[in-house]
């Protein structure tokens, strides 16, 4: 397939996943502000903005993290390339370009999300409850994902879409964890304190994994259990290992279909091998922040290799 | 006259580039005034592409360099036997109609200054006389002066300055000729320095005007003559850009610098086993 087409598909997935994350951030952020916190909600918001990589942009445009501004920034603001509106628009535009590589169901899902977004943008903000907005995003993200899974041919395009989804999701899980860990818990001693638990639970909620976590582990919430759940538990849909395994799977299918591997496959396999053989203790020994930073770096490197090996058009 | 050419163009990039594509018009034209004894074009890391003779009779050869590279050298070497045909392009096979060369381009647009200059044609005895008069008028109006004009300078600008190089002379002559409904075109080629060491460029350009009954005739206002045995003709076009011996594009963010050295000298065929050609040779360097 054309490299540019593969690139468009890959970015449809990344943008849809990113929109979903933006909505989750918005939800978890507003929840935090409703409750007391050790550092005040400003620092909570700041940490969330940092995880999305848009804290500077926000500060430049709005200054103080006021709830309404945050909603504008994370949902509607086109100056924020990671806002829901920016992501859905970009996903739909990528979809329009490769319209013929999609089924009508996938296109419908993308196009409907975009058309409804335009309606939302025209609706007075006073009529829009935050929960309605976040539910709306997650619903449409799920509809696009569902249409892809249910209707798309399992060809290379399908693999590029999935690679985009898993790469974006794994990266976001790591960033969310890193921000919570690094910003809110400067000292490991605080793990286990009441406040800390609350922060961690908020994190789980952001990933829509709170109930799943309790089913999987039960008992007291500990940093180790949460780290295991979000990094190493292959049952957890947003766990880093799940995302890396997903990339391995789809990169493997590409290698098989094309009859050759690239450096991306080797990189993804190495990342998976490490995750499969490590454990939480080893991660804490290395330092959670150090581990996450390293993963974020490796994930970016894998992204570069995928770009070079398939998407750049310079493939030989 | 036997002329040896050594023409090296070196492109340097401050960052590696990929997918370089070039289109060359670097082979001497086939006509009675010149016979190629040997001719060789090398492109560093290059893959030769399609080659063909275009409608104007020029031999076009394309090259590509996959890259990444930071430097590309195009080297042209060869020997041509020339005879003086007093500028006439005898025995040249081409299918483009002369009328096509009445079309205006940006570089050859006749502004009021050039229109005034074209008045030199008044009283001409015949079309050939008209062509000579125009060429003389251009030579009078623009003095040879390297460095005052650039590759993008138009005929009108050069005339306004009253100074320029061979490219400007050729553009100005083309502009006035077309204004008088005389088909005219830009010719790129080489010129061997003469014994007196008159100032001119080894990589040279002049104009051809179409004279009914005689066909295309070269005029070199820069040297106030018609091309003779010292000239090697490569190809033609509507203006300098259209007739460029090398056109190319590189993919990548790198900035390009170009270094050209050309030497044209009376000399032996390299195949005769002689070393570097002796005699006067002239080199020039442009940035």
């Amino acid at each position, binding site marked *: *397939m*054309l*490299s*540019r087409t*593969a690139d468009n598909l890959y970015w449809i997935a990344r943008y849809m996943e990113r929109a979903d994350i933006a909505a989750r951030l918005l939800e978890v952020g507003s929840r935090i502000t409703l409750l007391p916190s050790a550092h005040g909600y400003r620092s909570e918001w700041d940490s969330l903005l940092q995880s999305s990589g848009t804290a500077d942009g926000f500060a430049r445009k709005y200054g103080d993290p006021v709830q309404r501004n945050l909603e504008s920034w994370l949902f509607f603001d086109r100056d924020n390339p990671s806002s829901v509106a920016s992501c859905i628009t970009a996903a739909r*535009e990528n979809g*329009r*370009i490769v*319209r*013929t590589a999609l089924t009508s169901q996938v*296109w*419908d899902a993308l*196009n409907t999300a975009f058309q409804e977004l335009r309606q939302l943008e025209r609706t007075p903000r006073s009529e829009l409850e935050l929960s309605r907005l976040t539910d709306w995003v997650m619903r449409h993200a799920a509809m696009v994902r569902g249409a892809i899974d249910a209707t798309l041919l399992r060809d*290379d395009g399908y693999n*590029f879409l999935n690679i985009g989804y898993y790469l974006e999701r794994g990266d976001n899980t790591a960033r969310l964890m890193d921000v919570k860990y690094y910003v809110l818990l400067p000292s490991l001693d605080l793990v286990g304190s009441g406040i800390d638990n609350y922060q961690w639970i908020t994190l789980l909620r952001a990933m829509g994994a709170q109930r799943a976590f309790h089913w999987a582990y039960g008992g007291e919430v500990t940093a180790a259990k949460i780290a295991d759940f979000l990094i190493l538990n292959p049952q957890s849909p947003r766990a880093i290992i799940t995302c890396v395994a997903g990339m391995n799977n789809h990169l493997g299918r*590409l290698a098989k279909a*094309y009859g050759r591997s690239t450096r991306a496959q080797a990189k993804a396999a190495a990342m998976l091998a490490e995750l499969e053989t490590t454990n939480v203790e080893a991660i804490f020994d290395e330092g959670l922040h150090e581990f996450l930073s390293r993963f974020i770096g490796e994930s970016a490197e894998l992204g570069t290799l995928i770009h070079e090996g*398939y*998407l750049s*058009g*310079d*493939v*030989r | 006259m036997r002329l040896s050419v050594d023409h090296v163009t070196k492109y340097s990039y401050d960052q590696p580039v990929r*997918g370089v*594509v*070039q*289109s060359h018009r670097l082979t001497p034209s086939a006509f009675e005034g010149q016979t190629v004894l040997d001719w060789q074009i090398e492109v560093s890391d290059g*893959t*030769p*592409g*399609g*080659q*063909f*003779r*275009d*409608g*104007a009779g020029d031999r*076009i050869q*394309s090259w*590509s360099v*996959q890259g990444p590279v930071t430097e590309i050298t195009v080297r042209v070497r060869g020997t041509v036997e020339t005879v003086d045909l007093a500028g006439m392009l005898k025995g040249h096979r*081409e*299918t*483009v*109609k002369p*009328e*096509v060369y*009445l*079309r205006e381009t940006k570089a050859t647009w006749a502004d009021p200054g050039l229109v005034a200059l074209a008045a030199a044609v008044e009283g001409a005895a015949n079309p050939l006389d008209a062509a000579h008069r125009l060429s003389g008028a251009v030579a009078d109006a623009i003095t040879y002066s390297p460095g005052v004009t650039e590759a993008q300078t138009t005929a009108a600008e050069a005339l306004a300055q009253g100074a320029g190089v061979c490219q400007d002379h050729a553009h100005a002559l083309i502009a006035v000729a077309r204004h008088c409904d005389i088909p005219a075109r830009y010719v790129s080629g080489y010129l061997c320095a003469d014994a007196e060491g008159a100032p001119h460029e080894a990589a040279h350009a002049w104009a051809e005007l179409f004279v009914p009954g005689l066909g295309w005739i070269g005029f070199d206002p820069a040297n106030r003559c018609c091309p003779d045995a010292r000239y090697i003709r490569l190809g033609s076009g*509507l203006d300098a*850009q259209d007739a460029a011996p090398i*056109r*190319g*594009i590189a*993919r990548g963010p790198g900035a390009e610098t170009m270094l050209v050295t050309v030497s044209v000298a009376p000399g032996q065929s390299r195949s005769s086993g002689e070393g570097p050609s002796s005699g006067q040779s002239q080199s020039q360097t442009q940035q």
Partner: protein
Amino acid sequence: MRRALFSPKGGCLTDLNKNPEQDRGVVQVTDYFNEMYQNGAVRPPYARLEDWMRTMPAEFRQMKQAEAEALFRRIGITFAVYGEGGDPDRLIPFDMFPRVFTGQEWAKLERGIKQRARALNAFLVDVYGRGEIVKAGRIPARLVYQNEAYEKAVVGFVPPKGVYSHIVGIDLVRTGPEDFFVLEDNCRTPSGVSYMLENREIMMRMFPDLFRENRIQPVDSYSERLRRTLASVAPAKCKGEPRIAILTPGHFNSAYYEHSFLADLMGVELVEGQDLFVEGEYVYMRTTEGPKRVDVIYRRIDDAFIDPLCFRPDSMLGVPGLMDVYRSGGVSICSAPGAGVADDKAVYTFVPEMVRFYLGEEPILNNVPTWQCNKADDLKYVLDKLPELVVKEVHGSGGYGMLVGPKASKAEIETFRAKIEADPDNYIAQPTLALSTTPTFVAEGIAPRHVDLRPYCLVGEQIDLVPGGLTRVALTEGSLVVNSSQGGGVKDTWVLAE
């Protein structure tokens, strides 16, 4: 509104007898040709539609109209026809009342269209070769060799099978039962064919009964025939099944939908300039599996943007080196660069002459009489008769830069007069044509509206025409301008089986 109009057979225009126009058949016309009714009776091709029309309840019609609109929007077929620009998300109104031709009527049109497409290609082969038609004095050299659209770069190169224009869109208008006129030729990249196909698709979905009752020749083979046409002009160097790609300016282009639609129907890649590159003797596309050679490029971009090395050095669009590959036989480009010289509005006047010169036949389809403003006599006549004439820019398109005399205000006419006087070379004038009408659904019910027709003739190893085309309709009462940017809509076009 009755006006001074032109119609062929003796029919038309006003105030003639005065001069250079006498031989152009200018007479007063009193009526438009209605394709459905003639002398109070229904013409045969519309016989079965009469009932359908009369018995359709208003609510049903509204429901169907809404359904059609929803279908178009859902498909995403939102573009401007004929490169008119404008909002890319705009929907062109679809009129459900079909336009119908009998098989016999079509047979004549088909002969005329194919004849014209052959002559246009013969002309291109000639003017990029020996130029016999110019030498014979049948067309002025200046018009050809100094034409903006004439490409010096392709002189002497004969494209595979000698075809320059592979898809010829010929715009036709009708003024009477037997009278068709060619308004203009489109030899480069005529657009709108996706409407022809989608209009039919939607009509068949909404009114299957109509298709059972009427024997309508299908058009859906167009994409396969187009693919076959393109494949038939693959370069000699191509061995095996040629790989075809459609080259689009990109997704911001107003006709992007059509480009992707055709690529999808033919099962070929849709590429932008950046997806292609030249290496060695060939052009390749950039794929996830590495370079894949491309043999035939159906380009939907202008000549100027094909290759920055050859045409526009300032443009980073296009594919550097593509023209060298083309000229050395490594790839075919459809239509051939330089094909536009055949559809220039000034060259148009000479097409009947081309038919005679190259084919030794009389033209089956007539031109509209045209006055060239660069000729003193013609200019004088045009300026005298401005309120009655249609004046067009030689290089204009899409109904812009155009004066429809009978519809223009005094001030508009005077403004245009100044423009013509300032640059007469740039204008041609034609009589205001009495475009035929067909029944059209309007707010009040059904009413006659003016239409034109663009069939798409395919030229490759063989010459091919699907029975149908794009009918454009001027939805505003009395309007003769069918361009979508000026209130035009589209209709399904039927050719009945005999």
